[in-house]
């Protein structure tokens, strides 16, 4: 039998306490929610509409902002430029500032009297109390997760591989799309999932920008404030179940495409054996 040193036993005990700390409140909430109330909540149009709104606003924010965030991550991984550390610090800002404060900042940025607000009004779009404003608030707090993960991914791509592609006559754009991006894809997808997840769970910034239409974290808060714990619990459980299922599916899909070479290696080995 494997023997553990006493320090390792202490670490295992402390680790178990942390796991318990995470699992027990969630488990308690699940156990206290009856299947009946869960089914009833699943049939509540206000709840399903809010979950759907949360998913699609977060997904839109992730996809739209990814178009600029991924190239920025590439620049950060590959280039040295003046004030690069400052830029890196700015990217991490949304993680460290309180999210309600972030909401106030965004509100000031998208309200009707700002340039962005006026631009929006010109095309009939009011960011306040609108899914577009929700998406902006979600993107603000979650974009560092995508940029940092993608930057690490690009940094892990050997520069020589890119240089080799250049000497084979590829333009820098082709090198980015056929070499850098596919090789960093695993991290990029990880970043996309993290950004999406973080966006979905955002409450503080969104509630300041748009109380209505209600995303699920705001709905849970509203049900808790108006009706109490008993009414907020089934919505929370349902939202957690849907979020978890979504992330498991996304992870599985990204695992299918990640590390293709490794999977092929295993496949080839099988063929050799047979």
């Amino acid at each position, binding site marked *: 039998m494997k023997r553990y040193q006493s320090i390792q036993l202490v670490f295992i005990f402390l680790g178990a306490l942390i796991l318990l700390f995470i699992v027990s409140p969630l488990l308690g909430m699940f156990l206290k929610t009856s299947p009946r109330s869960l089914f009833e909540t699943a049939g509540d149009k206000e709840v399903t509409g809010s979950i759907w709104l949360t998913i699609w606003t977060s997904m839109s924010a992730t996809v739209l902002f990814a178009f600029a965030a991924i190239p920025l991550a590439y620049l950060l991984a590959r280039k040295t430029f003046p004030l690069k550390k400052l830029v890196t610090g700015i990217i991490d800002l949304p993680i460290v500032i309180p999210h309600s404060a972030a909401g106030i900042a965004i509100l000031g940025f998208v309200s009707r009297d700002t340039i962005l607000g006026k631009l929006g009004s010109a095309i009939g779009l009011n960011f306040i109390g609108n899914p577009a404003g929700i998406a902006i608030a979600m993107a603000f707090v979650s974009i560092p997760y995508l940029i940092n993960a993608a930057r690490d991914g690009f940094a892990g791509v050997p520069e*020589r591989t890119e*240089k080799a592609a250049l000497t084979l006559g590829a*333009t820098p754009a082709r090198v980015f799309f056929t070499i850098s991006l596919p090789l960093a894809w695993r991290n990029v997808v990880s970043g996309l999932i993290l950004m999406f997840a973080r966006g979905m769970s955002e409450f503080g910034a969104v509630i300041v920008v748009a109380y209505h239409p209600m995303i699920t974290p705001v709905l849970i808060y509203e049900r808790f404030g108006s009706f109490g714990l008993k009414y907020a619990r089934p919505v929370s459980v349902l939202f957690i179940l849907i979020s978890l299922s979504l992330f498991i599916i996304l992870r599985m899909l990204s695992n299918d495409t990640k590390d293709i*070479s490794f999977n092929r290696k295993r496949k080839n080995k099988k063929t050799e054996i047979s």
Partner: protein
Amino acid sequence: MLEVKNICYDAGEFSLKSVSFRVEKGDYFILLGESGAGKSMLLETIAGLVHPDSGSLVLEGNDITRARIQNRKIGLVFQDHAVFPHMTVYENISYSLHGKKINNREKKARVNGIAELLSISGLLERRPATLSGGELQRVALARTLIQRPKILLLDEPLASLDSRIKSELRSLLRKIHHQGQTILHVTHDYEEALSLGNRIAVIHQGSVIQEGTPEEVFRNPKSEFVAHFTGARNFFRAHGTGENNNSIALLENTLPVTLLPLVNTPDGFILIRSEDILLSNEPFDSSAANNFEGTVAEIIPGISGTDVVVNTGISLHALVTPESVSRLEITEGKKIWIHFKATAVKFIPA
């Protein structure tokens, strides 16, 4: 063909200091130098991955110093081959054919042709992760050769390969060269340089310090560094006589030397370390298979010992201590015997 003129580049840790040399069409040109001498940086400069601070690069009469990488028609194979891990061997090889006006049938034919030349036809559907180091290097060569480069740059292509694979790849590189491909190959290995190159330039601390044929560079090292780096003063062209399974080779068509049998090829170079040569006033019976009488031509004192040059029809250098020189009363013009074992004779096939 390729003229490298006064290339200077300062990259902090490494720098190139006014590097100049000329590679002619059909040359197998070797840049020989220690690690950190600036060899790889020079290749990257020629390929266009790095822009020099000053100097110029002229390829077939056209100044390419500032030309775009993709327009230079120069192929570069990296030491770590840099094969694209997420593509099959076929996709790797055909990568450079993208955007060229070539139909699928011709593309396939070209990939198959180059794969056959490099003996990797059976690997085309494989992923790089399943290939050995030697196979990866062949894929990298195929991927570069398929674009028919005017000059092929090789950055330590045989480093970190085991000796059997190395010898196979050397034959392959000779084959590619014999098909007319001009090659510029950088290495730190003088055996590789002798085995493959028809011209050699020695690069040291970012400068080319000697250039010439292998014989010129190895026989007449222009500086202490070259002499030390090339490793041997006793360097000769040799040819197996066919006797005893080619275990006797004629040095410079003059001196018959016994060595371990030459299995593959009777032609090449022979190196004998001057530390491995013994001197005596009289012949004596020993296990040394090579015993010759000669005349002391020169005595050169040095830091690591005294270099005694003995003329036996060809000049052989023996490195001995100053005490041995005085004990044997060695003087210029004196008759003396030299001895060395067959195993001390290093043969490098050419």
